[in-house]
């Protein structure tokens, strides 16, 4: 069940660790505590949005009436493969090397 109210929020240590895992960030325990305090303070400020609780708004984002901007499905030249691979050592035979996903 999605929460609709921004609860009086003070993040717990576990919540910060959970967020860090979701965000693929590694934090030291000192960092967890420091960020816990700072993020809780910022979330405290954001509680002001609870005053907007019952307002209706539509989510349409119609800045320029741009909808589904497409082009012809036609192969075009892209970046040179040499340039694309030029900034890493993690490569082999014109491919990026990544961690195995399947065993």
């Amino acid at each position, binding site marked *: 069940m*999605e*929460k*609709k*109210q*921004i*609860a009086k929020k003070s*993040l717990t240590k576990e*919540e*910060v660790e959970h*967020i*860090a895992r*979701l*965000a*693929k*960030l*590694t*934090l030291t325990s000192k*960092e967890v505590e420091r*960020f816990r305090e*700072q*993020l809780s*303070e*910022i*979330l405290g*400020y*954001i509680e*002001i*949005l609870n*005053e*907007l609780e019952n*307002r*209706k*708004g*539509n*989510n*349409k*984002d119609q*800045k*320029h*009436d*741009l909808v589904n*901007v497409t*082009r012809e499905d036609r192969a075009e030249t892209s*970046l040179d493969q040499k*340039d*694309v691979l*030029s*900034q*890493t050592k*993690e490569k082999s035979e014109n491919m*990026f*090397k*990544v961690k195995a996903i399947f065993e």
Partner: protein
Amino acid sequence: MNLNELTIKDALLGLKNKDFSSLDLTKSCLERIKKVDNKLNAFITVSEKEATEMAKEADDRRKNGSKAPLLGIPFAVKDLYLTKGVKTTAGSHVLENYIGQYDATAITRLNEAGAVLLGKLNCDAWAHGSSGENSDFGPILNPYDLERTPGGSSSGSAVSVAASESLMAMGTDTGGSIRLPASFCNVVGLKPTYGRVSRYGVVAMASSLDSIGHLTKTVSDSAIVLNVTAGHDIKDANTPDVEVPDYTKEINTGVKDIKIGVPKEYFTSGLDGNIKREIEKALNVYEKLGAKIAEISLPHSKYALAIYYILQTSEVSSNLARYDGIRYGKERSEFGDEAKRRIMLGTFALSAGYYEAYYIKALKGKELLKSDFDEVFKKVDVILAPVSPTLPFRLGEKTNDPLEMYLSDIFTVTANLVGIPGLSVPGGFINDLPLGFQILGPHFSESKLFRVGKAYEKETNWYQRKPII
């Protein structure tokens, strides 16, 4: 006057009249950088060899009759813009060895227009900041007072123009990052309408808020640059096919009968009394010039910053989630504190159980802000507002309190949320510190903003007061 102190307009005239060459002009800038940048730290990379080559090419093109609009004009670029073959760091250790693999569209257009790239400018890492103090390459200093910040995140951009190291600098504005440093450094800063200038090739911060703009000494210079960078780009699907007028055409038509709205919500007790007085002085100038001043209301203003810090950090977390440290750059563990903070805030706001309460609510709030502006622009042509709630603050003054730093953006974020353009112009000096004000208009009204800004500039000429470094 030394060549590096010229405006773009005057430099183009001088080049046309063969008073000097682009090589002379570029060398003058490079010498100035050598002389003062160790005090200012505006540049991360100075591409002296490339700049000299480009300047010679520009001189050759001119000899062969080229009329390219920025031919031979030296400029510098916030290190968020990819420049092919030139180091591009985004102000972060993560990319400190990264060499750009292609040019941003804005860079391609400037190159075609004949501009000469001097180098890459220091900024808050990933554009996360309002002071330049979040750069991994040391803070940038305000040339008007070396103990104060120049504002951010396009800190190096503002400083390089203010200190006459460069005739123009490209920046980005996601929540005020062009307008705030422009205001703190006595230069003109343009945040164009969202989608007016292509974002292709610029490191994405918050993709629905990022605006690609520039900083110049004068309003006319700003219009000259926008003529080059603006326009539809197939590589950025959010650039609509809206015509690019000649932005210099109406610039001297004055402000007679232009209706200027002043938002009453911005002039509460939170605003520094000195700044309030300066704005009132500016309004008096406009009235004298024939404009009509009207008080207007933006009733949802007090929610803007909270809405911004949810939407912006949500998009930041999404964009930086794409950073894998495999194809280029260092590991994710090299992200600095501010990047980590914003990534975590955004991840939280988007996470299961909180998405409705935070992200969706902020999206709805954004629509309310938009209606505020739609209503107001039925009554007035432009809005005049402060840029910063305080004078340029001291280095270290806000670095221990992230929320305090975020509050610097309180007057600037709304333009990004609703997508409208904003022009920050020099508004004078308080205690010898520069302070600007901003002119906001409806989508694609940049011509009007330039016209309104130029009228004030003609009366006051604040840009002529150079810093003593």
